């Protein structure tokens, strides 16, 4: 059972088949993000039974500072969810909490039982003091076979570095190798923390395209942290804008037009997203199609109504 006891019943209900009525979806939308900057009080949203991983009412306090408060998040199979927000917004802390590396002071994290997560951490500084080839790195731990390693490296387009030392790879190559490691155990959820750090602009676009292809091919849920907004948002099905609480969330187009988003990132960023928007209308359609099953990202029609 995925619901916590004592929750207000009604919005989605325990059964997966129940599609929320438009009025309810609207109310939901209001609560989860459209209204920004206000404290929502204790979270009462039931966990999403379709989600791979979900969080409710997360609060994290470190050294007297509230880093996250009342954060709700769901990631469903096959969706790319991008977490954006300014520096210090708590993005990495939220991800670390979802991964179980941080303990929340309040709230709960729920994982689908047996969920396999592939993680690509933010900073991957390889200490050259440790001699280690790519192949060896990929076999560390579970002892993956060479054929399997070759397959995964090919999938991320990094076959030719298999015999190289980790310390000699470029930023982009290293990211792909770490991504390959994350894919080795066939994860259902891929978590990438600012994967384009230290990667040039072309490499960045390629990496996001690769993540999109992986999602399509493997049906992965993807949680992506980024501060590089427009490229990421174009690839995303859903964007959550975080600034110690969830400021706004929804399909990329809706978030980009949101006043809170403009306030956080400035009108320039918002405009630069608009340039990209028409390129990716198909993504928008795709998101619209899957949206009815997902309360937190209603079709944009709903929003405009």
């Amino acid at each position, binding site marked *: 059972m995925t619901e916590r006891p004592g929750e207000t019943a009604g919005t989605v209900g325990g059964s997966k088949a129940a599609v929320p009525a438009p009025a309810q979806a609207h109310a939901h939308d209001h609560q989860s993000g459209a209204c920004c900057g206000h404290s929502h009080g204790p979270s009462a949203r039931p966990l999403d039974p379709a989600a791979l991983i979900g969080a409710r009412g997360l609060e994290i306090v470190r050294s007297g500072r509230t880093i996250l408060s009342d954060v709700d998040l769901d990631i469903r199979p096959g969706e790319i969810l991008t977490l954006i927000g300014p520096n210090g917004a708590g993005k990495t802390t939220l991800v670390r909490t979802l991964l179980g*590396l941080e303990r929340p002071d309040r709230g709960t994290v729920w994982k689908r039982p047996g969920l396999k997560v592939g993680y690509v951490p933010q900073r991957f500084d390889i*200490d050259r*003091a440790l*001699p*280690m080839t790519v192949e060896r790195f990929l076999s*560390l731990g579970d002892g993956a076979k060479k054929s399997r390693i070759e397959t995964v490296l090919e999938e991320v387009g990094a076959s030719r570095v298999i015999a190289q030392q980790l310390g000699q790879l470029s930023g982009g190559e290293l990211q792909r190798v*770490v991504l390959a490691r994350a894919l080795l155990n066939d994860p259902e959820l891929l978590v990438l923390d600012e994967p384009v750090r230290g990667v040039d602009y072309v490499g960045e676009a390629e990496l996001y395209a690769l993540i999109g292809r992986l999602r399509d091919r493997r049906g992965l849920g993807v949680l992506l942290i980024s501060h590089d907004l427009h490229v990421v948002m174009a690839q995303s099905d859903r964007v959550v804008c975080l600034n110690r609480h969830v400021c706004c969330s929804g399909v990329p187009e809706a978030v980009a037009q949101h006043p809170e988003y403009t306030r956080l990132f400035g009108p320039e960023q918002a405009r630069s997203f608009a340039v990209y928007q028409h390129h990716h209308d198909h993504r928008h359609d795709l998101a619209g199609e899957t949206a009815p099953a997902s309360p937190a990202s209603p079709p944009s029609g709903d929003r405009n109504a």
Partner: protein
Amino acid sequence: MLELEPFLLRAIAASLALALVAAPLGSLVIWNRMAYFGETVSQASLIGIALGLFLGVDITGPVIFVTLVVAGLLILLSRQKIVPLDAILGLMHHGALALGVIATLSLRGPAVDLMSYLFGDIFAVTTTDLYWVYGGGALVLAILAWLWQPMLRLAVHEELAAAEGVNRDLVKAVFIVLLSLTIAIAIKIVGALLVIAFLIVPAVAARPFSSTPERMALLAALVAAASVVLGITLSLNFDVPGGPSIVLFMAVIAGFSVASAALRRNA
């Protein structure tokens, strides 16, 4: 010239065993950037020696106890961010050394041979010491072999390893206990000041010629073993202290090794 008298056999047997144990452990110290940490902890062992002398017991137990306390203290102090870690290590390192020297000398009066505790006396190794070296060394190697994979994963990337399910606190704690145990074993042979050299210098020498972690550990063991033979020979022929002679050869080999890597890079 070289007669294999019992004291000499014991010296060689103990140093070789130590070289073998120190190689993988020292490699891990280097990979985790803990050389200065190890140095600080090993010099604090002098306080353990003083404690052992005061209580009139074998120094092994007190040395393990004190090194663990100092390691714990270092980890605790490293959690604050106002003073950088290297400064904290400097503070502890010199503070521990000062306290250790004063304590050792004042407990038993000037008759105590402080030099032998600081630099060891490989030719004074007893049969009991040999049991300690081989028994303790085998235990350290066995645990290292058992936890080698998780330790490597933590050395590559701690966060990633933790996210993948490596119990980081446990593995790190075991590592520090192994370090402390090795220091306690080694201290009678090479002394509080040279222990850390046995750990890290051979690993440094091995790095430029290693493409895998295991090769680095193995090469480090070979460098250390060669240094033991050369150092003891030097010591016997020129009547110079054994421990420093061994460390000198380690350092010379490491110096040439790193220099050759630097030259290859520029070529």
